[in-house]
């Protein structure tokens, strides 16, 4: 049986250093830290740059566009998720990669490196970034 109940899906909780990320998703933005000395955006949010170690960081809003880097089509039941579910890694336009779901797409039509864009899925008390195939001519 495939049941799709977003409210029943796992709802993450922020820690102080990740709160701005989750505040942004609630407002419909994908924000990530950028290291000013390196000019690098990185995922996941941390209090210093994993490349140079600087704490001179600022939050930037990502374009929400990326490429489908890799994925599986999960046939394992997970609370609130339909079977099958596409579990993917997306490479953001800004460089970092992140785990996500690819939704609103037939798993048989997916191709690696296809363009995707972010959507926000409302869970209990938190909005989770997921991705959809980018519409042509968008």
């Amino acid at each position, binding site marked *: 049986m495939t049941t799709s109940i977003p409210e029943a899906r*796992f*709802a993450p*909780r*922020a820690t102080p250093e990740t709160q701005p990320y989750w505040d942004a998703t609630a407002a419909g933005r994908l924000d990530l830290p950028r290291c000013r000395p390196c000019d690098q955006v990185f995922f996941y949010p941390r209090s210093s740059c994993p490349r140079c170690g600087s704490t001179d960081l600022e939050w930037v809003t990502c374009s929400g566009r990326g490429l489908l880097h890799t994925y*599986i*089509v999960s046939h*394992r039941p997970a609370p609130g998720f339909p079977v099958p579910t596409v*579990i993917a*890694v997306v490479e953001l336009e800004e460089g970092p990669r*992140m785990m996500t779901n690819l939704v609103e797409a037939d798993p048989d039509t997916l191709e690696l490196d296809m363009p995707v864009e972010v959507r926000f899925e409302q869970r209990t008390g938190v909005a989770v970034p997921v991705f959809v195939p980018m519409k042509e001519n968008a």
Partner: protein
Amino acid sequence: MSRDVVIMGAAETDIGKLPTTSTLELHVEGARRALADANLTKDQVDGIASVSIPGPIQVAHSLGITPTYVDGTGVGGSSFLFHVRHATAAIKAGYADVVLVTHGESGRSRVGAPMHPRAGDSVMAQFEMPYGITGPPTSFTVPARRFLHETDNTLEQLAEVAVAQRRWASRNPRAMFRDEISVDDVLGAKMIADPFTLLMCCLVTDGGGALVVASREFAEAHGSDKPLVHILGTGEAATTPLISQMEDMTRCKQFTLSSQAAFKESGTSQADIDHLMIYDAFAHVPLYGLEDMGFVGRGESGAFVAEGNTSPGGSLPLNTNGGGMSYTHTGMYGMFAIQESVRQLRGEAAAQVDGAGTSLVLGNGGMFMSAATLILANQR
């Protein structure tokens, strides 16, 4: 002068479905059997190493040992290789003489084994678990499609890994699955995480085992008449706790780093290795291991396996107990990979490789999170 270090005792418990044995008891039973194998009493042990459940202090206390060297490194299924490496360093430094490394896991029956609690605000919980990941089958598998895409390896060759290992398992009466299988069987099995079918995934079993690591001097003075297994070189490395954050999803950096360290310390190269164990939680992991340790070139691992090189009679026997996919996989499989190398080097394996004088064990921890390499030999 640095002391030579050896594995002087090794043993596994019963394995498979053990619904009346707790995780702790599996550690303790493995330890008793390994000590008996080494012809030692528990009072000759001065060091203990194990993972966090139930923890080295609990294991030592249950056995009646007061250790003066304790290692609780818990970095996933590779932990026991890390323990052997750390024990080797401690023995060389004179901090311990005899270190007991124990594993036990009621992975299937879950007796005395709490599920790994993971807070909803851990890093993994925030950035990976929200996406329907239920465990290793739906996360460890994620990089594989990219790996196949960027290399010349194929889905059929991925299936060949399971086929080759089942050939070894068919020769091993202790293996959980022993009937030989075909590529079609593998590809046609129940889909778990496309492209991975059930037969490309490891088992979930109960079991335990232990090793006795000691100075060669001590082993020769006090041990049994079993052949000593010499630790020639070791390496360890760790990268990311989140699989989505691998630098390159088609390469496992810690496989390269840990094996390079072990080759360097041992003064050996790939061509010197007679027998190989690569932690196989899923079918792609041995392919990464073969490539990232330099046994084959980039993109050549699939054909290497498909051509039978790692199968019985092949040039590089790999996972000769049947591996995590056919032999046993309690959750933290690394102990069983080491045990098979010890058996091969002693000449007592169920599917014995003729002339196995050197063996390399590569352990993976977590989902491409940590790795350690041991290069072992039957003489120094």
